């Protein structure tokens, strides 16, 4: 039986591997996710057949409650609230890993046999318990702070108070110290073991808060990806505690996934991970500080939905550049409709997707997929950047940083970030609500360029108006 269960765990790990492999193509990705879910089912079922189960009802009840809550959350969430939801799930994952390690400790200090087969709580295991609790708890509280910032429940501003760095370092030192005490006392005094692990848990929770609080709201996706990596590592550490292969393999895979995503995002923003984690960059404070009105002596030329309709409907080629504002306005359906109407009139319409447009990697792809925009109309930055020069109208919908020419000059927060060359198009129409800057807080010269026309207003409303005009034209 033992061997069969081990084989089932291995099969689960294999299903995760195969599932993740299928994530390499949109055509197979859904199947891949289902395979991974199947792997999870196999692992859970196998566990239910372990010997020595004392309270099967507790297991079933826990599964049912968790599954119910998870299903409801997953059903109800808006697609735009994806980053928040991932953050919440992630926090739960980290918490669970830490709690399992704590249960193992409770089992030990309660004088019972420990959960891992054939082991006592030796120094090696104690060390992995510390890792599991530390990483798990940091992931948990960090993820919930990230959730708060992403959902707007906490302010997005980087929070910084005097002595915060000191406090962070102090907590880290404390966590390490009590981790050491825990390992040292693991074979000896039970009260010291309990005390040290409780203090460790609380410090780790506080640490998670302090680590994420100073990071600006807009950098949260990077934080979520990194915490995702941590929650994988926490699961792997728990796997070490229990000597469970399924946990080690899958946890490590997730750790790698999160880490790769983090690196990719940082690269695309042309910033280092350290800069993201310590920068206090990208809060709304930056936005508030910069100009929301045209500065003196500069003029912007405004346009209306009617004019934009005429302009685009007589164009040969229109390139749509979506950005975070599209997600905020939820304008993807209107945009798709507009593009289709233009195509009916013989206009070539393309979408130019910047790698970090939006707030999550692939954010725009998910949004446009939701609105059923066909694949072959989406172009990556490198593919499309040469085409703006032959394009009549570049339609910038709620994008800002990804089209900001300031990136080409040195000495500002987005210097060196590759951008979409919309300014090479004959006319640029920018759909946004004001002149306020984007995520980075860097002012955008594009708005004042001669070839640029601003279409102020919520992107959804503007797009709706254009759609009506186009229908009237036909």
């Amino acid at each position, binding site marked *: 039986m033992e061997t069969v269960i081990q084989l089932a765990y291995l099969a689960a790990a294999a299903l995760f591997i195969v599932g*993740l492999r299928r994530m390499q193509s949109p055509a197979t990705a859904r199947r891949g996710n289902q395979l991974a879910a199947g792997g999870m089912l196999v692992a859970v079922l196998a566990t*239910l057949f372990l010997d020595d189960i004392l309270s099967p009802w*507790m297991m079933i009840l826990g599964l049912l409650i968790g599954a119910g809550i998870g299903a409801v959350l997953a059903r109800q969430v808006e697609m735009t609230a994806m980053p928040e939801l991932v953050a919440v799930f992630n926090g*739960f994952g980290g918490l*669970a890993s830490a709690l399992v390690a704590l249960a*193992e400790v409770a*089992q030990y200090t309660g004088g019972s046999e420990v959960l891992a087969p054939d082991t006592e709580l030796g120094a090696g295991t104690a060390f992995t318990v510390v890792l599991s609790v530390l990483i798990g708890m940091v992931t948990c509280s960090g993820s919930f702070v990230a959730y708060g910032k992403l959902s707007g429940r906490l302010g997005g501003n980087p929070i910084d108070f005097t002595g915060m760095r000191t406090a962070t370092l102090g907590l880290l030192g404390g966590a390490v110290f009590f981790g050491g005490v825990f390992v040292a006392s693991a074979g000896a005094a039970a009260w010291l073991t309990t005390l040290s692990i409780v203090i460790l848990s609380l410090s780790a929770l506080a640490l998670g808060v302090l680590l994420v609080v100073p990071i600006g709201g807009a950098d949260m996706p990077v934080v979520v990806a990194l915490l995702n990596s941590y929650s994988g590592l926490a699961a792997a550490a728990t796997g070490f505690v229990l000597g469970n292969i399924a946990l080690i393999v899958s946890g490590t*895979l997730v750790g790698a996934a999160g880490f790769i995503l983090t690196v990719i995002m940082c690269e695309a923003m042309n910033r280092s991970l350290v800069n993201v984690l310590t920068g206090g960059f990208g809060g709304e404070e930056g936005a508030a500080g910069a100009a929301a009105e045209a500065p003196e002596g500069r003029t912007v030329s405004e346009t209306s939905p009617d004019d934009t309709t005429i302009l685009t409907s007589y164009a040969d080629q229109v390139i749509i550049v979506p950005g975070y504002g599209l997600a905020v306005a939820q304008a993807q359906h209107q945009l798709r409709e507009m593009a289709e109407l233009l195509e009916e009139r013989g206009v070539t319409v393309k979408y130019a997707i910047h790698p970090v447009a939006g707030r999550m990697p692939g954010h725009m792809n998910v949004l446009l997929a939701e609105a059923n925009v066909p694949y072959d109309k989406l172009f990556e930055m490198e593919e499309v950047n040469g085409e703006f020069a032959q394009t009549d109208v570049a339609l910038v919908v709620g994008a800002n940083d990804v089209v900001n020419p300031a990136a080409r000059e040195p000495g500002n927060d987005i210097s060196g970030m590759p951008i979409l060359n919309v300014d090479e198009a004959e006319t640029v129409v920018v759909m946004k609500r004001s002149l306020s800057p984007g995520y980075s807080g860097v002012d955008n010269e594009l708005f004042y360029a001669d070839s640029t026309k601003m279409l102020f207003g919520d992107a959804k409303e503007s797009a709706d108006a254009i759609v009506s005009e186009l229908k009237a034209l036909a």
Partner: protein
Amino acid sequence: MQNFIVFVLSAFLGNEILSKVPQTLHTPLMSGANAISGITVVGALIAAGMSGGGWSAWLGFLALVVATINVVGGFLVTDRMLQMFAQKQRSSGGAEPEGAKVK
């Protein structure tokens, strides 16, 4: 030691597999990977079901509930997202109305 080896191999494997996921799928990858990290549900089951009771059992039970939320919610939401990608592929041939498929 053996566990550590498994860890190293998995890290290599993860790196190989995941660095090839296209940008388009990064959001679903993030949530799908997150769901997989819910594998800790196995540990939670062990903790909830095999503890002698007391603190240990309650910690295990709590772990089980939150881990299951992570797993079930994570996979479902990823599926919802990927479903949209699948639809998009199907309909990319043209903008036929749904009814067209019946014939």
